[in-house]
């Protein structure tokens, strides 16, 4: 995979930043506008997949290699669990309790601020990290597959 022509490379080097920024916007504003962690995570993954299709697999692997992607995946899952466990520490209702209380904001114009929904933005960030890293990981693994080794395998068995 050596990548595509220079036209595709130039255009995608401009567009990938916009796609990445749009994914971050979708994740951060998931509790106010349509979107959320799942959609934003897939958009983040697709920006890296665009990089991989345009410049070849090696270039994308330099930016985000396979062990780093799998570690990011685990970090996302652990972050989501940590947000849930913090609710347990606060005691009131247990697991997944929305421990950042909203009462001190009542009466102000709080509903449509970025920092407004307790633990929901934190969980959105965790879910987005997890989904984006794992989907990029799967596309990378699918493109890394070399048919040579298993062809030898079947020859040996025959």
């Amino acid at each position, binding site marked *: 995979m050596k990548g595509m022509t220079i036209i595709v490379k130039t255009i995608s080097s401009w567009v990938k930043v916009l796609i990445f920024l749009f994914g971050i916007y979708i994740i951060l504003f998931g*509790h106010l506008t349509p979107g959320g962690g799942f959609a934003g995570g897939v958009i983040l993954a697709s920006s890296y997949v665009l990089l991989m299709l345009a410049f070849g697999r090696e270039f994308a692997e330099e930016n985000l290699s396979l062990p780093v992607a799998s570690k990011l*995946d685990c970090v996302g899952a652990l972050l989501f669990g940590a947000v849930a466990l913090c609710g347990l520490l606060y005691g009131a209702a247990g*697991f997944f309790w929305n421990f950042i209380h909203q009462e001190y*904001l009542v009466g102000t114009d*709080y509903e449509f601020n970025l920092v407004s*929904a307790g633990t*929901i933005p934190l969980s959105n960030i965790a879910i987005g990290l997890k989904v984006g890293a794992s989907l990029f990981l799967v*596309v990378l693994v699918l493109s*890394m597959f070399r048919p040579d080794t298993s062809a030898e395998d079947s020859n040996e068995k025959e």
Partner: protein
Amino acid sequence: MAIFYIYILLLFMIIAAIIAVETKYLLGAVICIGAVGFGASIMFLFLRAPDIAITQIVVEVLGLIILIRACISRELTFISGPREFFGVVVSVVIIFVIFLAGIRVLETLPDFGTAIFAEAPEAASQTYIAEGLQKTGAANIVASVILDFRAYDTLGEATVLFTAIIGATVIMRRKPKKLLEDE
């Protein structure tokens, strides 16, 4: 008017699905399944579900990339025709039975567009709509349902996604031979 668009899109999806099932060319079938997915995405917009429309359209792009990865640069042998006779007869009978049961169920469903959840005043959905903003502070009710009221479901779904990715990674491992020798 929305009903009219919904019928048009459903017919478009059914025609694209039939072409995808019946065509001999694998790449053409993959492109037709993309048409079905994008039709579903536009239809979610008409059904007032913008969150799902965004997710569907992005997932469809990535899924097409994965499917084309499977089909391209293979020796495309045109495998057509059904399996052997007995299996086909049995499966067609099973499909017919499911079809009859589905027709029976369709008679009991209410008309399209009536809000079933609004008829019971104690329904969970009514509580979510009425008190979602007050209790969680999230203006997007769907986000408050996913990550606050029903966060256990999301934890389970994240586990399923993790397991599927691990499975794909293990199957596509570079050297499966070594594993066999260790045993």
